[in-house]
């Protein structure tokens, strides 16, 4: 939807925001899962939420998709407030939750059909739409098989197709490629791009895969411990950290670490050094060219290098830059004391 209005004789076209969030907070007892989060997502934007497990991504998506009531703050999704008009929000959004949610006892087609009926889509329209979607996600020839016979990747693809059966304005995906092999992951990325182009969808995605956020998203918000700590395009986020490359040096002896650090810091092309046990992460310009002299400096300072790696900055490094920890560090999931391992996805964030 585009708003067109006249101002001082000029025609002004403005795309309204698809999602507007201000001061959104969710507390579970003493724990603050989402802490005073504010952001906007423009119509047609591919927006990503990047953060480790337990950062509050799922809780945030569940609030935006009306599954959880916010403790405080406001969220407007497709022009409707999630607390005041949850039903109107539900009609306009499609959601792919993190857990696999397709019905095992139904066929792929039936899963889509029942879902379409929940949205009151007339039969003829439904049949066409389901065929179109199943074609794109590559499940047309398995449409009449029970979902119980599908692989994990197929179920995920079906669930994405199902979330689009009612032609929503915004598609929410909560870690859509978690647990998928790299090939299936790329397939999912491909058709997400396709859907976005064809249907001018706004897509809101949460992930803890750097590559995913980098490949797909126009803008990425980095979330940690319930707070947004950075929000920009992947390119801008990366340019915030000095040094285009990162050289990781592992030392076999760290007794002269301080000396080595001092020598390296004095080197002109070195911007920053982070120490992680025996590994030095050195942010440098032109890493490949400067590597030999870097190793020489270390030797001169009395260090012995046991291994070297060099890579271009990625969002992973951006994440480390902002949070001081790697995104792969996973926290233990919470499991209910009363019901055991039954429903971790409900209590996990």
């Amino acid at each position, binding site marked *: 939807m585009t708003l067109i209005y006249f101002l001082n004789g000029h025609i002004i076209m403005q795309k309204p925001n698809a999602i507007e969030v201000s001061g959104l907070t969710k507390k579970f007892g003493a724990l603050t899962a989402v802490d005073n989060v504010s952001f906007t997502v423009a119509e047609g934007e591919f927006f990503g939420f990047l953060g480790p497990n337990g950062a509050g991504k799922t809780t945030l998506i*569940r609030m935006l*998709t*009306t*599954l*959880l*009531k916010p403790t405080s703050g406001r969220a407007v999704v497709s022009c409707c407030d999630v607390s005041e008009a949850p*039903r109107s929000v*539900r*009609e306009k*959004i499609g*959601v792919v*939750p993190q*857990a*696999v*949610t*397709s*019905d*095992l*006892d*139904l066929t792929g087609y*039936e899963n889509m059909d*029942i*879902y379409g*009926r*929940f*949205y*009151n889509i007339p039969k003829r329209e439904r049949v066409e739409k389901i065929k179109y979607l199943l074609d794109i996600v590559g499940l047309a020839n398995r449409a009449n098989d*029970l979902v119980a016979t599908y692989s994990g990747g197929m179920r995920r693809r079906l*669930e994405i197709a*199902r979330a689009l059966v009612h032609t929503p304005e915004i598609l929410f995906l909560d870690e859509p490629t978690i647990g998928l092999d790299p090939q299936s992951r790329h397939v999912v990325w491909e058709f997400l791009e396709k859907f976005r182009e064809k249907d001018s969808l706004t897509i809101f995605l949460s992930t803890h895969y750097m590559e995913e956020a980098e490949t797909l998203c126009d803008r990425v918000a980095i979330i940690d411990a319930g707070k947004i700590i950075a929000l920009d395009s992947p390119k801008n986020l990366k340019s915030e950290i000095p040094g285009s490359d990162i050289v990781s040096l592992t030392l076999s002896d760290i007794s002269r670490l301080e000396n080595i650090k001092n020598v390296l810091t004095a080197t002109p092309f070195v911007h920053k050094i982070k120490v992680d046990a025996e590994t030095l992460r050195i942010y440098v310009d032109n890493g490949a060219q400067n590597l030999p002299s870097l190793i020489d400096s270390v030797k001169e300072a009395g260090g012995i290098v046991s291994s070297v790696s060099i890579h271009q900055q990625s969002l992973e490094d951006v994440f480390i830059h902002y949070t001081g920890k790697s995104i792969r560090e996973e926290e233990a999931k919470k499991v209910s004391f009363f*019901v*055991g391992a*039954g*429903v971790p*996805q*409900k209590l996990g964030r």
Partner: protein
Amino acid sequence: MTRLLAVIDRDIKKFRRNPVVVVMSFLMPLLYLVILGNSFQGKLKNLSMAVVNQDSGTYAVRLIENLKAIEAGAKTFTILQLKDQEAAIEGVKSGRYKTALIIPPDFTKRIVLNKSPEVGLFMDNTDSISAETIRNSVSGAVRAVRQEYVPIRERPDEIYIRDINLYAMVDYYQSLVPGVVIMAIFLGTMTAGVFNLVMDRFLGSEESYLLTPLSRVEIVSGLIISGLTITTILASVVFAVSMIITGIPFYRGIDQGISIIIIIVLTTLALLSMMFVFLGRANHPRIVGIFSGFLNVIFFFPSGAVYPIESFPDWLKAFAKINPEAYAVHALKSILFKNAGLKIVAGDILFLLVFTVVMTSIAIVTFKRTL
């Protein structure tokens, strides 16, 4: 309406995809009929009794004849005559006999002299039901000793008609039919309705349905209606088959059949909505498992299906007053055995209706539309 129908359609489709569950749901209530019918026999039989007769007098002989008459007729016990009193008592202690009857040497003499005659009855009183039954039969035989004739006497030279209470026996089976129908309904409400909700929640698919515009009313009533459809079919088939097995005649033909189905539908609705109230927020199928076993016993046995409500203690009678299964059993028994029409069971129908409305309202209000 489209949404509601979609909920119902989905649920019934999923049920049909589990043929094992479908077959079990039909067979299990019928097995209940056979097993209940044989384990809760109306009368006890073939309890072993050791008899030690130390008296050779006429009254002792007459007492033994009376006991033998019971052995041959009602078959309450089987008699083993022993010489040794100690052996008989030991036999009771070791469980070989349920009871030992000792007739002392002066039994006949004391009867003749009116000097309070006695017999000793050693009972295994840990098995109180058997002990009670034997005591009643023996006291009957002892009281009859003073009578000058023996009512039933077995002599090899006489043609003897042995009563085998075939009709009473079948009647007992028949009296279980309402209970079996209730069992079938209970089983149906456990495998359909709220169970599907808990299962969806457990498998994670509930989340995807909560994301759609479905309302609470549509979710709860959709599941209750699909459960009703499945359970009514189950219970009606179980009812028809147990009628054939036990040979209950249809007094009023199709009318009676319709009345029965109305009661089945109302009972199903009452139980389905009640389950929703109890289990609407459960999130693990194990919780349903524990609850179903428990609820089945506490609702079924005080329903009057097996034992008459009149002989319950007051607190249990009070519970039977709010137990929907008690009303269902009463209605079914009246229609089946007393040839009653719907007017006579109007009270039961009213209770089941009110119960359903109250429970469904609670279920809808307490149903959590968010995670």
